């Protein structure tokens, strides 16, 4: 199981939901830009996949690091916000971490970027793969 490890909590959103945007005034309302890409985690028999929705980037923009069982994906890029009348997303500068279980073959982690999604494949160690039940014959 990959427990999410988030650098920036999303608590401010809840605050706005319950009390409306006017409590903090327009300044707060206008600063509502999502800058932390969403992630899905998928489990297959022999591997996990992390999918990070970070559209509008290039493969070379990503920096992926693994240290002490924490996988960190980060991007640091300049963004042109000239003439913007509405901004809801900005994935040009972020850092997001994931706790990786010990059952992953760290040296075989692979990543690819396609259609705005960064997909990281994390193969499980041989002993962590659940084998199908086997019938044992009595001789």
């Amino acid at each position, binding site marked *: 199981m990959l427990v999410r490890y988030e650098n920036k909590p999303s608590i401010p959103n809840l605050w706005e939901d319950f009390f409306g945007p006017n409590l903090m005034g327009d300044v707060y*309302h206008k600063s*509502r830009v999502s800058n932390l890409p*969403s992630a899905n985690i998928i489990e297959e028999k022999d591997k*996990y996949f992390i999918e990070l929705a970070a559209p*509008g980037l*290039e493969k070379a923009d990503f920096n992926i690091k693994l240290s002490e069982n924490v996988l960190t994906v980060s991007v640091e890029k300049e963004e042109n916000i*000239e003439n*913007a009348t509405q901004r809801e997303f900005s994935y040009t500068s972020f850092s997001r971490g994931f706790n990786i279980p010990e059952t992953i073959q760290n040296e075989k982690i692979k990543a690819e970027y396609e259609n705005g*999604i960064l997909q990281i494949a994390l193969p499980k160690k041989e002993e962590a793969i659940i084998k199908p039940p086997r019938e044992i014959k009595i001789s």
Partner: protein
Amino acid sequence: MKRPLENPLRLIDEIFNNERESNKNAFLKESYCGTMPRMNIKDQEKNYFIEIAAPGMKKENFSINIDQMILGIKGDINEEDKREYTHKEFCFEQFERKIKLPKDANFDEIKAEYKQGILSINIPKKEEQIIKNKQIQIS
């Protein structure tokens, strides 16, 4: 699990007034299948430029239409997703956003493209509406 994306009363984004009613529940929505894609808008000298962050789609999954002054953007993936998610934050399987266009938008020349997970829509302004910075002489 699919559920209605929007409260009908909130269907029209009054985008050019910076008022964002429909996004208030974004935090709550994102825990369901059917994430509202986020949108950035630029008001440039000769055109309006809309960017919608909807990664992992295909060009064919989108439909864009104009009814009266309302630009409707729909996304629909018809394939069933059978993968096993241990954690899910985004899913652009089905969504719809509607934007009221300003009066000077030139409907006939709207162009859209899908690249790196971002759907960008370019709406030129009608030429006669572009007011040049003009000095008026006092006689």
